[in-house]
């Protein structure tokens, strides 16, 4: 009987978080001979993902509380047995000592209940919840019941549940940041995917994760720190949720004497929510900047500045924090943007289409707005207008920008800020298209992100360059600072050595990329 090319082992009643499991699976793939590796809890969704990965799941009876380790190999039959056995052993070793753990926290006591956790850490005031979406809502309600503020990193929490959680929290004067909130900063402490920037006079309320990261970083580049960065999750400012937490956070920060400048960020809110935010901010009598990316609202009034882009928002907020003129800071910035045309000239104009490959959703959105003004319609899996939606997110058409942080790319996979391999492959794929003239991408740094994203993307860039020669110009922005675990200067050096044109912000990178193709 031929030996199977797969091995599946079930470890009963054992739970690991999805990031740890996917990091272990990724490590296993580095083992020579392992062609597919999957570690997941035995949920229905995971069965489907494993099935589509080519595993034969006949006879597998794992429940959602059981861990499934599955490995496949493509080595010749005689070598399979030993290789698969070795891979399973390695998986268990990695689980005991997970890869990528950046601090020595392995031996710390881990209470099994919330009450246990509260007795270990009396005075706890925040729960950081990142369990699977189907459990996250109930866990958040338990935490609110115990008087904890909540950061809800988890996504796939139904909107009705979000409203229920937020109403319960609002009654108790608690914050719920999320669901789908990737980044927060409280008194300078960064949580989720967030940068190691200084503390200072600006505070931010953001319905946009990478938007918060970009503004945090842009403020740091201007020598201005952030005290609080309150994420709300993108849905908060929509009609269904009504901006409950955005308004709660805005009012809290307006009342906080330590906050000298308030910034509110996100895609444009529902009109009635936008009005409420505007009213609250105007009544607050504190310098404020509203950065509604691509919004229609215009005109600064009474100390409240309205911005349409992320770096613009940061530039104005930084000026206000320094007691300078916000309007002049904006003018100066847009003058600097004009000089990018000269840089495009120096790089050398290219012909053809722009292909943007993003890990940050807000960055992709902003990139489209900027490039559209210069090049015309941009197609995307997250388009500005419905009719510009890509039929297949894996196949670009004309000018395209793809957000790899969308659910379609993250089901059963690590977020692209942690695993850059899909984008590295796509860079090469795009380069093979003879109609492509510029490839644009973001590199997002900070806690919770890949240790060395530039090195991971470099593999794709080298292959792309050997396929396309000088036909394609590569443009990137790095959302990070030198104090980040990855060190922004070091990341920049890696990219520049490959000839990538690195810009100081996403707004600049999108402009430069489009200008190279202009005319």
């Amino acid at each position, binding site marked *: 009987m031929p030996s199977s090319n797969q091995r599946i082992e079930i470890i009963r009643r054992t739970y690991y978080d999805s990031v740890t499991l996917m990091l272990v699976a990724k490590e296993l793939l580095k083992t020579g001979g392992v062609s597919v590796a999957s570690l997941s809890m035995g949920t229905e969704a995971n069965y489907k993902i494993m099935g589509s990965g080519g595993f034969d799941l006949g006879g597998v009876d794992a429940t959602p509380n059981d861990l499934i380790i599955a490995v496949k190999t493509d080595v010749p039959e005689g070598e399979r047995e030993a290789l698969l056995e070795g891979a399973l052993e390695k998986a268990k070793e990695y689980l005991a000592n997970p890869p990528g753990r*950046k601090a020595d926290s392995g031996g710390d006591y881990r209470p099994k209940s919330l009450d246990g956790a509260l007795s270990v*850490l009396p005075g706890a005031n*925040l729960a*950081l919840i990142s369990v699977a979406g189907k459990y996250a809502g109930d866990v958040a309600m338990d935490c609110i019941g115990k008087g904890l503020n909540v950061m809800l990193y988890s996504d796939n929490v139904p909107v009705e549940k979000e409203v229920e959680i937020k109403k319960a929290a609002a009654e108790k004067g608690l914050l719920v940041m999320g669901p789908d909130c990737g980044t927060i900063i409280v008194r300078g402490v960064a949580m989720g995917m967030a940068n190691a920037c200084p503390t200072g006079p600006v505070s931010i309320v953001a319905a946009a994760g990478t938007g918060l990261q970009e503004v945090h970083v842009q403020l740091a580049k201007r020598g201005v720190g952030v005290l609080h960065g309150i994420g709300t999750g993108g849905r908060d400012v929509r009609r269904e949720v009504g901006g409950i937490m955005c308004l709660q956070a805005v009012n809290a920060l307006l009342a906080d004497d330590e906050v000298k400048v308030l910034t509110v960020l996100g895609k444009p809110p529902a009109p009635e929510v936008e009005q409420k935010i505007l009213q609250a901010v105007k009544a607050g009598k504190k310098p404020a900047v509203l950065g509604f990316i691509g919004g229609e609202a215009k005109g600064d009034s009474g100390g409240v500045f309205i911005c349409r882009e992320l770096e613009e928002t940061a530039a104005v907020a930084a000026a206000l924090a320094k007691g300078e003129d916000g309007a002049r800071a904006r003018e100066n910035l847009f003058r600097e943007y004009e000089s990018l045309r000269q840089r495009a000239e120096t790089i050398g104009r290219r012909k053809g289409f722009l292909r943007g490959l993003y890990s940050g959703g807000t960055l992709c959105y902003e990139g489209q707005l900027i490039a559209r003004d210069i090049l015309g319609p941009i197609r995307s899996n997250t388009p500005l207008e419905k009719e510009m939606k890509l039929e297949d997110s894996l196949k670009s058409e004309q000018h395209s920008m793809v957000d790899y942080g969308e659910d379609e790319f993250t089901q059963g996979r690590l977020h692209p800020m942690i695993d850059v391999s899909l984008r590295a492959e796509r860079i090469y794929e795009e380069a093979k298209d003879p109609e492509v003239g510029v490839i644009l991408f973001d590199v997002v740094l900070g*806690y919770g992100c890949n240790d060395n994203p530039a090195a991971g993307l470099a593999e794709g860039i080298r292959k792309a360059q050997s396929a396309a020669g000088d036909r394609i110009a590569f443009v990137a922005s790095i959302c990070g600072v030198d104090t980040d675990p990855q060190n922004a200067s070091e990341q920049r050096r890696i990219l520049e050595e490959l000839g990538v044109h690195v810009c100081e912000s996403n707004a600049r990178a999108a402009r430069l990329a489009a200008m190279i193709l202009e005319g």
Partner: protein
Amino acid sequence: MTMSMTKLLKEGPKVVNIGVEQFYADLKTQKAEAVSMDWKPSAAGGDLLARLKKLRKGGN
């Protein structure tokens, strides 16, 4: 503004981490006060709680 939120903003975060272990490690790197729970679906409400509620209502 109510006490709980203000306390968080004034005192800084004291965090119960429930889920991704890396976030706990990152908090430790920043010397923030934190504890990480050994969370499992069945031990923390979720499905079990929903099933119990259903049973109480006479469902199955």
